[in-house]
């Protein structure tokens, strides 16, 4: 009897180990597929002009030309583009996160007539393709005489233009016990004081996640800059890359393009590794289950 039990345990153990091994093999195989483009990007970035078109392709650059990064960077005024991008990212993020947090606070913690209808409209704007409102929006900025300025890319952020982030923050805010607000109110705190001292500390993970998302949004934005910025001195990194690619029929210098792709991805990767824990937690806590 004991023997059978022992054998059963043993076979179970063997099964577990096989299962784990298969799992590791599958996970690693997919990881290689996911990482391959990253490897190829780096490898190409370090190759010489002649090497990139070698057939069959060389997997490793020989020798590795780290100078390609500097060459690519100086091929266009990327210094100016970087300053412009940082300017837009900072102004846009501050405005967007501030306004969206306040709006979400209003939706989550206050009852007022029409609230649910307004929130429903807010959610439905997610279905609205950006391109439908594009032309009239352009005409508005043109009427205001601000086409060619940075304004169309950052001013609107004050009106909480990211419905999805409002939704995320609202979900998060609704999870905070109401007793906290009430206690603060009994102590004589104004809604603003309650917001700053009671609510804000509670939603830090969500705010960090939204920081990463919005950073990505402004850093990535192509449609805005390509529409509104027509002066070379105002180009952003992304728009600069568009012109760095060259004309439609030109064969681009892939080593320099890959080097710049790494550069443009770098802030995102760094931010992701710093905020990783909060980032994934932020998405986890969105209460998507209900």
């Amino acid at each position, binding site marked *: 009897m004991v023997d059978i039990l022992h054998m059963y345990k043993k076979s179970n153990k063997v099964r577990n180990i096989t299962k784990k091994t298969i*799992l590791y093999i599958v*996970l690693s195989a997919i*990881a290689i597929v*996911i990482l391959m*483009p*990253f490897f*190829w990007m780096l490898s190409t970035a370090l190759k010489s002009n002649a090497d990139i078109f*070698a*057939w*069959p*392709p060389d997997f490793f650059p020989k020798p590795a030309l780290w100078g390609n990064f500097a060459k690519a960077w100086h091929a266009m005024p990327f210094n100016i583009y970087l300053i412009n991008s940082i300017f837009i990212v900072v*102004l846009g993020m501050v*405005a967007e996160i*501030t*306004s969206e947090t306040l709006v979400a606070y209003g939706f989550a*913690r*206050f*009852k*007022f007539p*029409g*609230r649910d209808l*307004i929130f429903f*409209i*807010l959610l439905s704007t997610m279905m*609205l*393709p950006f*391109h*439908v*409102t*594009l*032309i*009239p*929006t352009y*005409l*508005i900025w043109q009427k205001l005489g601000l086409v060619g*300025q*940075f*304004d169309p890319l950052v001013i609107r952020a*004050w*009106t909480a233009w990211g419905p999805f982030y409002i939704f995320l923050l609202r979900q998060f805010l609704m999870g905070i016990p109401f007793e906290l607000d009430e206690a603060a109110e009994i102590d004589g705190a104004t809604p603003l004081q309650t917001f700053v001292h009671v609510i804000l500390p509670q939603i830090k993970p969500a705010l960090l996640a939204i920081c990463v998302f919005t950073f*990505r949004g402004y850093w*990535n934005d*192509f*449609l805005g800059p390509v529409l509104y910025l027509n*002066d070379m*001195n*105002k180009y952003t990194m992304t728009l600069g*890359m*568009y012109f760095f*690619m060259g004309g439609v029929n030109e064969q681009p210098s892939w080593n320099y393009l890959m080097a710049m*792709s790494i550069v*443009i991805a770098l802030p995102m*990767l760094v*931010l992701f590794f710093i905020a*990783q824990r909060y980032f*994934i937690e932020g*998405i986890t806590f969105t209460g*998507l*289950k*209900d």
Partner: protein
Amino acid sequence: MEQYLGTTERWFITPLVLMFLAMIIYLLLRKLGWKARAATGFALVSPWLIGFIIFTAFPLIYSLYLSFTNYSLFGTPKWIGLNNYIYIFTNDYEFWPSVRLTLLYATFTVPIGVIGSLMIAMLLNNRIKGIGAFRTIYYLPAVMPDVAVALIWRWLFNSQSGLINYVISPFLKIFHIGKIDWFGDPKYVLWAFIIMSVWGIFGTNTVVFLAGLQGVPRSLYEVAELDGANSWIKFWKITIPQISPVILLQVVMGIISALQIFTVAMFVRPTTGAGIFMNQLIYNRGFTQLHMGQASAIAWVLFVIILAFTLLVFKSTPAWVHYEGEIKR
């Protein structure tokens, strides 16, 4: 320096104006007899409401109007009735191919993205050593900027010396096909875009699914195991119903974003012969060729398509989406 100053100034004034307006709204509502908390709440959401009216509601209606006009950004719009729609539906050699490419792209990427990332999330939901590292790797493509994603894949798919053509060259030899011009050949452009999007899609969706899977109560599985359910039954009877709201969210968001593909496509720059997406067509028509009326008409067609698909999915929800605490009839 001055290019920053003007914008910065207006950037500081805007919130002050919005706050002032919110205050006026608050006082008005109080005058109308609203309670303090209700008025505060409405005042708090008013910045969004103002932005919505100026930058969404008005432009939406105005673009519908523009779609019935002839307008080139200069002069005034001239009413031409349904002519823009008649033109794009019957005469426009670019319109139907772009609709076809956009719809096919969404039809393939949404199911592949949702099913694929659910399967990967289930793999990542195992508690084994080093799973954290795998989760990080699997998430990496999602943090890459669109520009970088587009350029990497355009290079991987390069017809002369791309890695992908090299990897599949043995197969190409068997079938006697030359090197494939992925983004230049209308036969392959769709597949190239699908493969590229799948690589990018997995990250974000997988994390959300992972969160959903971790939210399924353990007890449900334990009870099922006592009843002798195998993994297959557990998957279909517990996992799927429990995470069905997450699936719904992923499907809806997937449809909306797939139909609106733009930046990546602009950087991949498929040749016109190979086909362009609807959003690219709208941009080209409007801002390159200055046919604002036609561009608005195409944009409205895209809007109606998105609306139709989303409503269709929502209409189907009672059949498959399971909400906690809902009484099944």
